[in-house]
């Protein structure tokens, strides 16, 4: 790993949505930094607020019924306070965005080449011929075999993997410093997924961009991420480097998630299950450890009253203290117990 500078600094970010005259926090008190040339993965189940976090970074929420507070510092400026036209200058230029569903992200009535050129037209001073050249160059860069033909096609004529490549081409058109990828491979087959992830990795090596990767797939995280933030119910519950997180997961939620993956080499008949489900926005508990209702066998006194992120070891943060005494339902003793036993 090279030495890295922070390029994005998120401080105490809250995003709340209005539901019947009340604002509910979907993202609560998130502080994160993204470094150059780094893949920061954000994982969690649906409803944990990970996509909301992504869209907050680029200001894609309708201002009428959303409240965003806190700071998102990019080059010393706070994106939260930016007006729409200021944001427009940054989106697509400094920050690229890759959406989950490439078909919905592309205009069905516009040729691929024009869609990529549109970004260039808005953000650069290239003339038409230069733009065309750049479009073909970009398509080539994202691994499309026949750029000239594809540039002249419409989105529906391409396969899912090709479309996602086009969306990536648009995202990297202006060589952004930051890329936000919201479930970029969820809609794709495994072989295509592997190709797209390899592509993102290669592009990053070329451009030194920082990538925020939103995903629910821990396998994908293990393949590409450098650091991982695990989100639950709008909060970060664990933050660590990828090797640390998979070798030494601490928070009960992280451990439960890892435990519910069908494991290749175990012949265990039953998968571990997390009881209950992610609370909905309106029913989210606003006090205490939010994961507590899903691990009812853990004594209440083990949770903190106001769970904070604690730095357990260098660069490894865990929320609440309940991890110390956490054990799976059918096991005895907690993590500390095990540590002592060893």
């Amino acid at each position, binding site marked *: 790993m090279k030495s890295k500078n922070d390029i994005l600094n998120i401080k105490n970010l809250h995003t709340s949505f209005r539901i019947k005259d009340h604002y509910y926090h979907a993202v609560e008190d998130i502080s994160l930094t993204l470094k150059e040339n780094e893949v920061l993965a954000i994982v969690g189940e649906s409803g944990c607020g990970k996509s909301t976090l992504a869209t907050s970074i680029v200001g894609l929420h309708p201002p009428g019924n959303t409240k965003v507070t806190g700071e998102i510092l990019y080059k010393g400026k706070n994106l939260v306070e930016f007006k729409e036209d200021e944001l427009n200058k940054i989106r697509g230029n400094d920050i690229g965005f890759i959406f989950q569903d490439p078909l919905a992200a592309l205009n069905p009535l516009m040729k691929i080449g024009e869609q990529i050129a549109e970004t260039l037209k808005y953000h650069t001073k290239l003339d038409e011929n230069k733009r065309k050249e750049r479009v073909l160059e970009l398509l080539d860069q994202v691994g499309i075999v026949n750029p000239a033909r594809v540039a002249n096609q419409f989105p529906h004529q391409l396969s899912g993997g090709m479309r996602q490549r086009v969306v990536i081409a648009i995202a990297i058109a202006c060589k952004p410093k930051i890329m936000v990828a919201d479930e970029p491979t969820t809609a794709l087959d*495994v*072989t295509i997924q592997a190709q797209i992830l390899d592509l993102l990795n290669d592009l990053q090596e070329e451009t030194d961009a920082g990538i925020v990767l939103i995903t629910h797939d821990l396998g994908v995280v*293990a393949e590409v991420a450098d650091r991982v933030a695990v989100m639950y119910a709008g909060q970060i519950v664990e933050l660590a480097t990828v090797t640390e997180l998979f070798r030494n997961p601490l928070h009960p939620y992280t451990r439960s998630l890892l435990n519910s993956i069908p494991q290749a080499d175990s012949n265990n008949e039953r998968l571990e299950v997390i009881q209950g489900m992610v609370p909905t926005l309106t029913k989210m508990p606003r006090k205490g450890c939010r994961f507590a209702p899903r691990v009812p066998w853990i004594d209440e006194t083990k949770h903190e009253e106001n769970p904070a992120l604690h730095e357990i070891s260098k660069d490894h943060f865990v929320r609440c203290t309940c991890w110390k005494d956490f054990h799976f339902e059918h096991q005895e003793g907690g993590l500390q117990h095990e540590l002592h036993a060893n």
Partner: protein
Amino acid sequence: MSFMQIKDLNVHYPIRGGFFNTVVDHVYAVDGVSMEFEKGKTYGLVGESGSGKSTTGKAIIGLEKITSGQIIYEGQNVTNQRRKRNSAYNRDIQMIFQDSTSAMNPRKRIQEILAEPIRNFMKVSPQEEKRRIIELLEIVGMSEEALLKYPHEFSGGQKQRLGIARAVACNPKMIIADEPVSALDLSVQAQVLNFMKDIQNEFGLSYLFISHDLGVVRHMCDHISIMYKGRFVESGTREEIYANPQHVYTNRLLSAIPNIEPETRDERKIKRRAVEAAYKADSHKYFDEKGKVYPLKDLSQTHKVAMMGAERGGM
């Protein structure tokens, strides 16, 4: 002994065009697939999108017209009976769909949704019917409160379980599960998979488990077939497929599965590149001039692979 055999199943869609809108070509969605099902086993059908795995499932249950081929169920040829009402085949083979939301009528209550198969296939009194519905809800771990609710009031995992409840209503012999957990979160996925195993043990069900997720398939299935462009490229027991894959396409799929060990990811990337290169270089060994898959050849009693020069070993 297998209770059901699929013999040389073909589903071709005509492509029309030309002057008089004549049939100019066919899409070979399913192209000569044969399978056998034994009681209490789970059969995996794996492939990328467009490989014809869902079409195979739908053709077996009768949602898709068969161009040619036979389905033998308990010694009888049921190929043409699949869509008849009240046939035993229709009762004994059921299906679970990927998108449980669109598989249920949004304007019906759960009790009506679950009553439908019972009314179709069993002659029971209303009291008996109600008792069976409550029993079904118990099987899938839900309370009687669910009876009067509508599908949208449930979460994804609950809806998928209700879909399973509907499928097991008439004590089927086999359930065709088309991507049953693909739309679910990890922990919910674990719930549904556990539950599918439970009812399998309890009722001796067989599953045809259609999925693109090789991790889930490995967890669930005894026997796995890999499909590509309407044909099987490889078929064998779980151990044979995962420990000793023969076909380059199987290898390619396996090497693409993300693994949760970040330490070894660079090695995996190199291996993935090597497999990808082999896939391009040796494709003539595995696919004929038209890009079609060769016919399956036996490697052992259970392991079949479609490639040139595959010799009959073992046996």
